């Protein structure tokens, strides 16, 4: 019954608007605040639509247990975790299969941006805590984590920006939310380094033709570039206030 209703329900109406009123190429509202966790070396809070996520970075610091340390570079450890109250039905706080996976892909998507060789025998810990989830939390988490890493003053080749694209009904759309993720056809989270123009994460849940895949990827990268603009702005705001250009005093 419920299933049948879902299939009838259209995710894009006759005006081309999605369930939350966005157009196909529109991103949800993104807000980033830097330096929210005072105890951490670097931190960021992101609101990506209804997602609310805190990322905190500690390090480079001593590795415990010591045997995990690598002689030639730093170990990066990531923990993605959803709070019990982040979803409408209580989420068991124990790490689920999904969270273990996201922790891993998050680490792998951040690693290429970090110059880990600069900190041999040390560790960098990244904690991503989802306070409220609404689809696309891994992208929002990566976005926040990369800002937190920059805030912690860790040497980076580039900032990582992440954004999903996907297919709902028959349209390729940017930034899938929770409903679209569950009822849509495909969901493709992408993490991207805007200056280096390299993709550090690409997952795909669903079925796309090769043409659709390319369109989806292009769209996600456009989204990442928009997200990058917001990330950059947030960092600038924290460190330089409203000034964007340095005033020369001579």
């Amino acid at each position, binding site marked *: 019954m419920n299933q049948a209703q879902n299939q009838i329900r259209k995710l894009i109406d006759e005006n081309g608007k999605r369930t939350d009123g966005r157009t196909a190429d529109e991103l949800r509202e993104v807000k980033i605040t830097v330096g929210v966790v005072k105890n951490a070396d*670097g931190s960021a809070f992101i609101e990506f639509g209804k997602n609310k996520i805190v990322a905190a970075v500690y390090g480079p610091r001593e590795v415990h247990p010591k045997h995990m340390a690598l002689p030639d570079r730093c170990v990066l450890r990531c923990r993605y975790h959803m709070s019990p109250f982040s979803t409408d039905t209580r989420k068991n706080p124990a790490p689920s299969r999904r969270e273990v996976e996201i922790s891993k892909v998050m680490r792998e998507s951040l690693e290429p941006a970090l110059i880990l060789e600069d900190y*041999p025998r040390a560790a960098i810990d990244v904690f991503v805590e989802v306070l409220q989830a609404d689809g696309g939390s891994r992208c929002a988490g990566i976005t926040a984590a990369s800002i937190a890493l920059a805030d912690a003053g860790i*040497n980076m*080749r580039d*900032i990582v920006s992440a954004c999903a694209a996907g297919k709902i009904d028959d349209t390729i759309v940017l930034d899938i939310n929770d409903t679209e993720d569950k009822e849509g056809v495909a969901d493709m989270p992408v993490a991207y380094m805007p200056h280096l123009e390299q993709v550090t994460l690409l997952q795909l849940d669903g079925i796309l033709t090769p043409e659709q895949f390319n369109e989806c990827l292009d769209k996600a990268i456009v989204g990442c570039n928009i997200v990058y603009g917001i990330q950059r702005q947030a960092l600038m705001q924290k460190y330089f206030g409203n000034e964007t*250009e340095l005033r020369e005093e001579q």
Partner: protein
Amino acid sequence: MQEVKRRYVVPGDKIVEGNFRPLMNVIKVDNSIIATRIGIAESGREGVKVIPLSGVYIPRVNDIVIGKITDHSSLSWEVDVNSCFSAHLPAQDVFGRDFSPARDDMGRQLATGDLIAARIIAFDRTRDPMLTIQDKDLGKIPRGELLKISPTRVPRLIGKRGSMIQTIEQATQTRILIGQNGIVVVMGRNLDGTKLAIRAIRMVEEEAHTANLTQRVKVLLNVPDTSQIDNTSVAQTQNSQKGEDIQSTIEEVEEEIEEGEKT
């Protein structure tokens, strides 16, 4: 010929293109210099660097640091220098060449929990930092109030040619030791002076990036504003002097440790 150009950068930003020398917190990709930290980029004739505005302390050779003895083995002390690497102070450095673990009692010289001012004599990516206290004005710090600030704020706390720290010291009648690792020890004659100095240091740390800081510190300390101390009006100019100031940190620390009782 060419002026030093400064601008704000975040990681990944291209600072300049062309054949420049990468100095600090930058990488060379193809033909352009890319920033790896948030901070102020400086490109001049000698090269391109970024003065970072955040980050933990990473030891460098010849830095003067303040550390706490955490442990000792039969041959060396282990020192916490507020970094991801714990430093070692060899016993021979304190006892001299004829040190013998059987004869000399290490605990008598430096006990766990003691504070020392030391210089890093060796550090590279394969080894933990090695310290010495044999230079002038280094050694055990007998008393004082310890506080930690961000290592990136150390040059700001010292100020141009030590202006900031001198202002605070004179107004509060304290002696302030600053390690480049962001550990500060305040030694005051009385409690009020010490408290005031700590408040001033905290203020410098929190408002390091703002303009007219020296003046506001003076207001806090009730110092009449005289022109003899260079009250640099804009934080950026101060920050941009960090290169110089790092040098002055070392001098400063050496100066300041005069009272530090050598063991």
